[in-house]
């Protein structure tokens, strides 16, 4: 491929891949059976030029390839008020990846779609939350593949034979024990993004092993935990003892090796972490957002139940960001209509961190997502308030920040 005998696109992809492989300390490449591409988020002209160059050269993915969010809602960008020039570039970028044979999944939660890998499968995934979920919760094997290495892996069907593709690199490096946390706190959905955000900051480049959880988290709990851990740190794999597939016991989580000393995670630390996700110091509110990572159908259904018979205050923008596939099912079963009656805008294909959907002049965003809360000030230009799903809904209705963190204090 490197010599160009397979064409210009495989040559360029293989050239990038073979130069990056040593950074992963890989002496060779391995075959992967699927890819997830993050490069379809519009970052600027250079990324668009790269994708269109590969597509124009006849580049085709060699393995089933799902696409991350794009920077527009492909069906509704105009009614959402997206700028036509920006939307056109964002659309062209998505089209270039589709022309290369990628699937129009357009979601940051590909593990909740048909594109989800199996345990032990070697894959080349991008999107930090998806990487953490695939490795940790499913037990598939991938490193964090950044923009535009992801499409290079998809076109070549290869990845560096290193890091988390290899069994010996998947054992835990740090041991965390949760102490003094009540089971009722663990039952709250907002416990998991807070725990994840703390893990990412305590162990930013390692493989944390967590024991002491008293109940089995749901898939959506694990989704928010992994996303938060991959936001505050560069975590690509974590083990929850008794929960995740490579950690049925503490011994297995450390691969039979000697455990490092345990580090306790206390309630006080979790409380501090939760407070640190909020940067706003007022009760004023402009935007409420759900869905980073993309809301599942179960999360949409829960939002519909919590908002039934109520409506968001005038002037408050409410976003539920999800995939076109989930939005379509929500539409069929009546959930979409309920959310819209509340005053929510349910977007497909995109999210508020990659597409300018938040109204200009908005100052404060409230969210149940640690990832939205983290990136709010830098990427969206708003102060953040982190809250539970219930607090977010109450705040949307009241038109100001309503806090009820009884279980936390």
């Amino acid at each position, binding site marked *: 491929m490197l010599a160009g005998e397979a064409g210009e696109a495989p040559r360029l992809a293989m050239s990038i891949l073979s*130069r990056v492989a040593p950074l*992963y300390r890989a002496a060779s490449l391995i075959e992967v059976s699927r890819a997830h591409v993050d490069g379809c988020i519009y970052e600027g002209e250079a*990324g668009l030029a790269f994708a269109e160059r590969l597509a124009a050269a006849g580049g085709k993915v060699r393995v089933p390839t799902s696409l991350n969010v794009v920077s527009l809602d492909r069906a509704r960008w105009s009614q959402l008020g997206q700028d036509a020039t920006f939307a056109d570039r964002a659309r062209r970028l998505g089209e270039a990846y589709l022309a290369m044979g990628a699937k129009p999944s357009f979601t940051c939660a590909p593990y909740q779609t048909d594109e989800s890998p199996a345990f032990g499968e070697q894959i080349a995934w991008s999107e930090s939350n998806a990487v953490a979920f695939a490795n940790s919760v499913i037990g598939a094997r991938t490193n964090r593949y950044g*923009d*535009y290495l992801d499409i290079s892996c998809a076109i070549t069907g290869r990845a560096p034979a290193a890091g988390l593709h290899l069994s010996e690199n998947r054992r835990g490096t740090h041991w965390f024990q949760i102490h003094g946390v009540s089971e009722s706190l663990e039952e709250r959905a907002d416990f998991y993004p807070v725990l994840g955000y703390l893990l990412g900051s305590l162990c930013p480049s390692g493989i944390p092993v967590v024991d002491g959880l008293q109940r089995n988290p749901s898939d959506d709990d694990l989704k928010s935990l992994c996303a938060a851990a991959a936001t505050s*740190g560069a975590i690509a794999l974590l083990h929850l003892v008794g929960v995740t597939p490579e950690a049925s016991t503490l011994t297995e989580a450390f691969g039979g090796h000697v455990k490092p000393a345990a580090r306790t995670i206390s309630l006080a630390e979790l409380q501090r972490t939760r407070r640190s996700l909020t940067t706003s110091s007022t009760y004023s509110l402009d935007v409420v957002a759900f869905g980073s990572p993309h809301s599942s159908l179960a999360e949409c259904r829960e939002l519909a139940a919590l908002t039934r018979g109520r409506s968001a205050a005038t002037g408050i923008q409410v976003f539920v960001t999800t995939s076109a596939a989930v939005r379509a099912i929500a539409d069929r079963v009546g959930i979409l209509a309920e959310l819209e009656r509340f005053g929510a805008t349910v977007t497909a294909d995109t999210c508020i961190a990659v597409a300018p959907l938040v109204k200009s002049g908005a100052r404060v965003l409230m969210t149940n997502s640690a990832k939205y809360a*983290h990136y709010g000030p830098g990427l969206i230009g708003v102060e953040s308030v982190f809250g539970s799903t219930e607090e977010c809904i109450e705040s949307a209705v009241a038109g100001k920040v309503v806090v009820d963190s009884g279980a936390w204090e």
Partner: protein
Amino acid sequence: MGVKNRTWTGIPLVAGIAEGLIVASDEPLSLWGGLDPETGSVIDRRHSLVGIRVSGAVLSLPFGRGSCSASGVLLEAIHQNTAPAAFIVSEIDPIIGLGAILGDELLDRVVPVILMRDEDRRSIPAGIRVRIERDGLVKAV
């Protein structure tokens, strides 16, 4: 005692020649949500370098963190001439390294990335001007 001509030895992850003022932090930085490729300024409000323009600087960090989109952000910054002149990191960071390799492959512009032991990296004073050689040598000029 000045630092002029003092040298530090690193390993080039992406080899090239560059010169610039050292901007340093002991906190990892995600370039996505951390660096604005339009302005070259650090925009992560939770980071100690927030508000600092790093275009043309030699950015010294332990490593990058967070998003996979960081390599795309670095490529855009290189395209818009707002990127740092070079990076010095203490852990192999495939995402920053990838962004620099993309700049070389796609735009023919090299932003060197130098790997250095953390204690050595931290001993390079912020604000001094350094020259980076292809072999990874960092020299105060």
